[in-house]
Structure formats: structure tokens, C-alpha cells
């Protein structure tokens, strides 16, 4: 598993013309921009990577499983991601290899 700080370090190793601070701010900006686009109910389409969109979830009759009480849920939007063709193919080609759930930084320290 890797988190944002590790992603920033990996990018900064490739983009040596930018400072780590620029990259860190840039990554935060990209994430913000994706969120804002979705909040305004617009799609985000990244060729080869995938697309983020919103799926509408209408109000439905639900039950609280503990109390058995019936209630109506509020209609809402849920974020949906569909991997792009290149991403799907590259990920699928790695079947059989381990999925590395542990933190990459911690694993490196051992």
C-alpha cells in the first residue's frame, strides 16, 4: 500500500526539474480539482487511466437491521470509477503476483 507522501516522493524522483514542494502542492491541487469537478456533477476522464463519475442513488425504503425500524433513505450521489482500457489490461496482466497490502515505507524500514 502506498499513501500520498510516498506518491509525491516517487513523482519527484522522475520530475527532477520540480521541487518536492511544487509536486506536493500540485498533487494536492489535482486531487482538489477532481473532487470539485465531481461535486459539480461533472465527469473526470483520464485517457488510459479511467473515468470518475457520479451515479444517482434514488431514495429507497430501508430497514435498520438492529431495531427493524423502517426508514426512507435520502436520494444521493455515489462516486463511481471505471478503469480505462490500458489500466485494465496492465492490472489484469499481473494476476498471480502478490497484492502488497503492507505500508511500503514500513516494509522498507525492516
Amino acid at each position: 500500500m502506498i499513501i500520498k507522501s510516498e506518491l509525491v516522493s516517487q513523482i519527484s524522483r522522475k520530475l527532477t526539474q520540480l521541487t518536492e514542494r511544487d509536486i506536493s502542492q500540485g498533487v494536492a491541487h489535482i486531487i482538489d480539482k477532481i473532487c470539485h469537478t465531481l461535486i459539480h456533477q461533472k465527469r473526470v476522464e483520464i485517457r488510459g487511466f479511467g473515468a470518475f463519475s457520479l451515479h444517482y442513488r434514488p431514495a429507497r425504503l430501508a430497514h435498520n437491521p438492529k431495531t427493524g425500524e423502517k426508514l426512507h433513505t435520502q436520494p444521493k450521489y455515489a462516486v463511481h470509477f471505471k478503469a480505462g482500457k490500458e489500466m485494465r489490461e496492465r492490472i489484469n496482466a499481473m494476476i498471480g503476483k502478490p497484492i502488497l497490502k503492507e505500508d511500503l515505507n514500513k516494509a522498507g524500514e525492516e
Partner: protein
Amino acid sequence: MSALTKAGLSESLFLELGLSKKDAKSLVESFFSTISDVLEEGHPVKLSNLGNFDLRDKEARPGRNPKTMEVKEVKARRVVTFHAGQKLKALVEASVD
């Protein structure tokens, strides 16, 4: 209503963060290609404020072509799934008119 693309993200980095157009484009490319590379290596990616990209291995199962009704095995495969984080979920749910 057009979608946000890599070009739109680069433009935003140029206008709002003052990166050169060339650097903005490189950063956007590198952001997505690094996430793809890391996932390909088998590491799930957690981005606070956005969400988690997870890897799941799916077992082979019998599938069917709905047009021809022909039965064919769907091979075992690895897929990437995305789950929005708490913050994004809350913002999106609150965006219902």
C-alpha cells in the same frame, strides 16, 4: 457540460499554481502514470481527500454471451476498484439539489 481531462488539470496547475505549461503537463502525466505503475506492481494506493484504489483478484466463473446464450468461462482476472474517501463522499452526498 464537458468532462475534466488531463488538459484541464494542466491548465488549472498553470493558472492557479503558476507552474509553467510544460511542468504542469509533466506533473499531471506523472501523477496518473505513477499511480498506474504502483498499482501494476501490486500496491494499493490510498489518497486522503480522494479515496483508495484497491486491487482485487477475481476467480474464474462461468459466463454467458447474453446475445447468443453461448456459455464461456470468464477467466480469473485482477481488477482495480476505487472507493471514495469520507470527505469526498460527504461532499458528493451533500451536492444533491
